[in-house]
């Protein structure tokens, strides 16, 4: 299946065609209450034909990160570079960005209802996109292309439906139409921001299937932003887990799911109800994500981390390699060998923590153990 294909592709070498290389991207928004540090020094690459899943909870910075790449975060203080095939997306003018946005990089948003104009026909909205970027295309030609695109994304009777208004489409069909629009100029990269979150499971399956099929056909790079580990397991090749504006861990899909190193990644996986652990209690991550205005000291995850050590309170770890492939990296002070969900990894974690913890950290760990996730003990 699609997954096996991408594995085969990897055999040809990881950095076959790097399309986008983001380095040390930082975005902050000054507000009356203080500076919101939405993204703090994130680096990653996306290769042509591959899918990068960006996972994180609300407020982890995943959406701001990708919006910034497209110049859609006005008012933000931005630093870093984003090399898209030789062009630094963060340094170009708005005019230059307009030529890239839609044509080279297109976006699919979460809410299919509000991402279309309710008063214009679906077909017209696709035609507008085509003609905005290429004035030489005639109206009739643009319409033909719109019908073609709608057909390609699986809209039945596309030649008639092209004249419908968005409200005449169901949620799933609207999202298909949005995808058609995103594909209309054969972009080299698509950013999909929670594209299936508003959809039902069976429709979500249709849309993920469609995205995968289209990607294989056209070798497009895909950035899939989601909070759903299930979607990532399905469609991603590589995964970046974000927490409080930073990459907590970055690895291939296999490593993220079967050999996670960062306690946050591990916590995310363990808090998902799944069939294997059905009868047991869930293991939630205690506490709340931090405020991006008043971030904790040191590692931003330490107030919720069961493996908190002394240095976590004062020093913020940055991504460093933890796997043999040189790609798997984690921003955590635990030793490299602590990657994994098995007992051996847990032993290493516990042993390290015991050696590296004095009173302050032990106090936090105790607080976590007795936190009101289950108020029974309280």
């Amino acid at each position, binding site marked *: 299946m699609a997954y096996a294909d991408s594995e085969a592709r990897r055999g040809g070498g990881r950095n076959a065609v790097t399309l986008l290389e983001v380095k040390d991207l930082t975005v902050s928004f000054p507000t009356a209450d203080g500076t919101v540090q939405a993204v703090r020094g994130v680096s990653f690459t996306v290769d042509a034909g591959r899918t990068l899943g960006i996972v994180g909870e609300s407020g982890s910075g995943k959406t701001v990160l990708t919006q910034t790449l497209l110049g859609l975060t006005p008012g933000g203080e931005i630093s870093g570079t984003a090399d898209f095939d030789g062009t630094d997306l963060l340094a170009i003018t708005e005019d230059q960005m307009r030529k890239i946005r839609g044509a080279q990089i297109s976006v699919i948003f979460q809410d299919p209802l509000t991402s279309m104009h309710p008063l214009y026909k679906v077909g017209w909205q696709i035609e507008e996109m085509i003609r905005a970027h290429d004035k030489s295309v005639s109206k009739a030609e643009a319409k033909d292309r719109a019908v073609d695109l709608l057909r390609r994304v699986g809209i039945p009777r596309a030649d008639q439906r092209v004249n419908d208004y968005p409200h005449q489409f169901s949620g799933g069909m609207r999202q298909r139409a949005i995808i058609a629009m995103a594909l209309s100029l054969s972009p080299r990269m698509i950013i999909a921001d929670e594209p299936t979150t508003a959809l039902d*499971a069976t429709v979500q399956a249709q849309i993920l299937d469609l995205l995968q099929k289209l990607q294989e056909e056209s070798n497009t790079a895909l950035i899939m932003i989601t909070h759903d580990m299930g979607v990532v*397991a399905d469609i991603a090749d590589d995964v970046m887990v974000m927490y409080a504006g930073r990459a907590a861990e970055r690895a291939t899909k296999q490593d993220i799911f079967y050999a996670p190193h960062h306690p946050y990644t591990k916590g995310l996986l363990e*808090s*998902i109800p799944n069939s294997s652990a059905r009868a047991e209690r869930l293991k939630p991550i205690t506490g709340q994500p931090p405020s991006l205005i008043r971030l904790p000291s040191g590692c931003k995850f330490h107030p919720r981390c069961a493996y908190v050590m002394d240095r976590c309170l004062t020093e913020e770890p940055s991504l460093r390699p933890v796997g043999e492939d040189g790609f798997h990296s984690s921003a955590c002070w635990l030793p490299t060998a602590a990657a994994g969900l098995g007992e051996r990894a847990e032993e290493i974690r516990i042993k390290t923590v015991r050696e590296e913890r004095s009173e302050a950290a032990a106090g936090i760990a105790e607080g976590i153990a007795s936190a*009101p*996730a289950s108020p029974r003990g309280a």
Partner: protein
Amino acid sequence: MGVPGAERTAAQQADGQPAPRPESDDDILIRVENVVKHFPVKSIGFTRRTVGQVHAVDDVSLTIPRGKTLGLVGETGCGKSTLARCVAGLIPVTSGRVLFEGNDLSRLSRRQMQPYRREIQMIFQDPYGSLNPRQRVGSIIGEPFAIHRMASGGERKRRVQELMERVGLNPEHYNRFPAEFSGGQRQRIGVARALALRPKLIICDEPVSALDVSIQAQVLNLLADLQDEFGLTYLFIAHDLEVVRHVSHAVSVMYLGRLAEAGPKEPVYETPRHPYTAALLSAAPAADPNTAASRQRIILVGDVPSPIDPPPGCRFHPRCPKARQLCSQEEPQLEVKAGDPVTHVTACHFPVEAGENLAAAGSRESGI
């Protein structure tokens, strides 16, 4: 805290309501019998004639034993929330009966319904929309006491703070506004409010779908603990099948206003008989790449049809990979299929057999 049983009966008698009659099956808390709920569709204009009916819930029956959780799953528009509102007595049923401890709630007047409102509470999906932003938390959680004139003054405050502590909120935050809490904490406020009158049944309508995964697990654990502690019965509605699987004892699957399949959790999840259940289960994303890669996903064709004019025969037949002529002519009834336990019922003429590959059948038609 809470109301002793004697007091409750007295209150009902004062309202002219007979005391609950002794029951034949005491372990069934709620029994829904052939409930139908149609909403009229009015024409636009002066006359406002009724031009059609939305068949939101059509002839649905289910029972929930005391202290158990029934999971209700289905896609948007399948009628699961409407059914929940009928059970809660928030909207009248078109026909059918809702029996709570043997008493038919669907025939009661507003006034007669009052004592039962204490017994049935709801937790809603949206932790932002379901709390009044201008009301302080203490008064939100204390409102059920005010409505039912139960505790007042210092006593009410004490009870509210007990509840806050029980659901994992800091009782010192009594005077805060909802905006000062995160999504997960707000959902805890909703849980505390539902718990205030010590109800027997709590209807949870998508209680965790608006929450982040790590927070979702906190709330699910809380609901499980409360069930153990207070012997609560839950009607749990969600579209996330893994969540439903985790919390439920039995599961009912709805499609376009009707039950497609119902039964104990294990057989429904392990060996689904209705093609819709099978498709739904195969479509749910598994947070496990190896499962995701090896799984045969049944991709259904098209969307859920309009409930104003549901398809004839089996309502699922236009999207069903197994549909045959009979399916469009005759509506299948819920019945026990060969080899299934008697509690596992399916409404399908051609149920899924063990080892059958529906994914292959589905892709054949995906061009339509």
